[in-house]
């Protein structure tokens, strides 16, 4: 179990515009976000000695960004090759590097031209090697097609409905309308949700996240150093990474996963809450990985905000509304703000805890949850001001 409660902090955040076509390289995006994170923290990049990122073959190496920024003496330069499940894991990895002395000030980033460049949701290679030879030949190829299988299983087991999924999409759009960063700020009605183009049953267009160009970065340091920096520290209070048995031979593979009506969340819930010493009732604002509408429902159930099977009724009863018991994805999420692979959720959590979220601000937000991933493995953090 991660046991560094409150010993490290997010001292700075930075992000680019989120667009459909950045017109620049991923290296430029990453460098812009990382420089802004340093400026936000009031840290000279000469003081940065660590950098970590994650990618899906669609980004630039951490060492490229370290070189582009002219970092003087980087000691900890790390990549994690995986999907959105890693968005919180790289921060947890940075805390262990800081506490073990490998580095003092670490940049964490995710950068991608996810719409104008490599489109993760648009398909995979047609060659069917490895475990893919048992999925792709049946026309089971894209991530929306992968995730629809989980959602249908949840519907079979618990009676979850499209109307309940609609509450997730519509609420996050309402949140995005308050967010000047968000890519989708047009109102979305329940009627538009239900009449949208069908992509892969049970998903229509609005069940599926955006595709985006952009980058987000954070600067992680020890709690002591963070207190001497420019911004109020946001402490990393708890964290966990993991999943259940048979996580698959790749991220797509769920053939041996015990039950796709639940994802990684219940497998990390105990470690997450114990590491922070709190429970679900203590969360003021939640930024939940929402690559698809249903993944919010599975996270709510898996982390204990409601019982298994009650996630649909929970969201339909207003549970995730801004004025409800668990204000969720206050920025609009991957569904309506942007798809920066879950790293934009960390940015939003920090702004909420600093009180910098403007019209989106959840009053008196002291403790936030961020989650990352929606399938067989994932990560989550508890942050506090």
């Amino acid at each position: 179990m991660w046991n560094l409660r409150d010993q490290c902090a997010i001292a700075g955040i930075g992000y680019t515009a989120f667009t459909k076509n950045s017109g620049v390289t991923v290296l430029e995006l990453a460098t812009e976000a990382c420089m802004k994170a340093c400026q936000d923290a009031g840290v000279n990049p000469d003081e940065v000695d660590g950098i970590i990122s994650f990618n899906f073959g669609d980004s630039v190496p951490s060492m490229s960004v370290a070189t582009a920024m002219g970092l003087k003496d980087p000691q900890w330069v790390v990549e994690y090759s995986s999907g959105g499940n890693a968005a919180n894991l790289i921060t947890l990895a940075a805390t262990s590097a800081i506490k073990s002395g490998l580095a003092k000030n670490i940049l964490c980033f995710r950068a991608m031209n996810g719409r104008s460049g490599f489109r993760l949701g648009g398909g995979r290679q047609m060659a069917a090697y490895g475990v893919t030879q048992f999925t792709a030949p049946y026309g089971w190829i894209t991530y929306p097609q992968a995730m629809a299988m989980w959602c249908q299983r949840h519907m079979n087991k618990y009676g979850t409905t499209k109307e309940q999924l609609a509450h997730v999409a519509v609420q996050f759009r309402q949140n995005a309308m308050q967010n000047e960063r968000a890519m989708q700020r047009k109102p979305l009605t329940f009627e538009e949700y239900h009449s949208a183009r069908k992509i892969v049953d049970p998903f229509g267009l609005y069940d599926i996240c955006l595709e985006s160009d952009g980058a987000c970065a954070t600067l992680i340091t020890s709690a002591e150093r963070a207190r001497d920096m420019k911004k109020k520290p946001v402490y990393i209070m708890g964290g966990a990474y993991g999943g259940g048995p048979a996580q698959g031979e790749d991220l797509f593979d769920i053939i041996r996963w015990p039950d796709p009506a639940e994802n990684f969340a219940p497998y990390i819930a105990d470690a997450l809450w114990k590491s922070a010493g709190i429970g679900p009732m203590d969360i003021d604002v939640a930024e939940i990985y929402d690559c698809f509408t249903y993944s919010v429902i599975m996270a709510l159930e898996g982390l204990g905000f409601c019982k298994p099977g009650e996630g649909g009724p929970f969201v339909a009863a207003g549970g995730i509304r801004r004025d409800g018991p668990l204000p969720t994805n206050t920025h609009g999420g991957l569904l309506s703000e942007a798809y920066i692979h879950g790293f934009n959720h960390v940015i939003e959590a920090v702004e909420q805890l600093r009180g910098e979220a403007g019209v989106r601000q959840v009053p008196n937000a002291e403790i936030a949850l961020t989650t990352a991933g929606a399938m067989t493995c994932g990560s989550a953090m508890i942050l506090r001001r």
Partner: protein
Amino acid sequence: MDNEYLKPLPAPDHLTAPFWDGCKANKLLLQRCKQCSTSQFPPGPLCTKCRSAELEWSEASGKAKVYSWIVVRHPIPADVYKDEVPYVVALVDLDEGPRMSTNIVDCVPESIKDGMPVEVAFKQVSDAITLPLFRPAK
């Protein structure tokens, strides 16, 4: 066979070739552990239950029940699947225990139900490859 076949084709390897050879002979073969008799799919180097490496190939009944499914309506890649949609991809639970992904054929997508009994229906798609599809059980 059809030279225009554009869909992904399995690339059999040392672990999986016996499975695909079986399909070509219209037999659904599963790895079975000689130590604990567990059947497993996809094939692996060890029995994932007892970690024995003593595995043999055993013919399955071809009977299964639908576990979950999707109906693909938006074709990706479009040039490959535009004439195929809507089509059904399913996870089916074989009577022998393992779960397998497949297509459900010979029925309308709307008729598919949780737990519906299905049976294997082999479809040759290239000289080397025959896919195990499933259809409603007779």
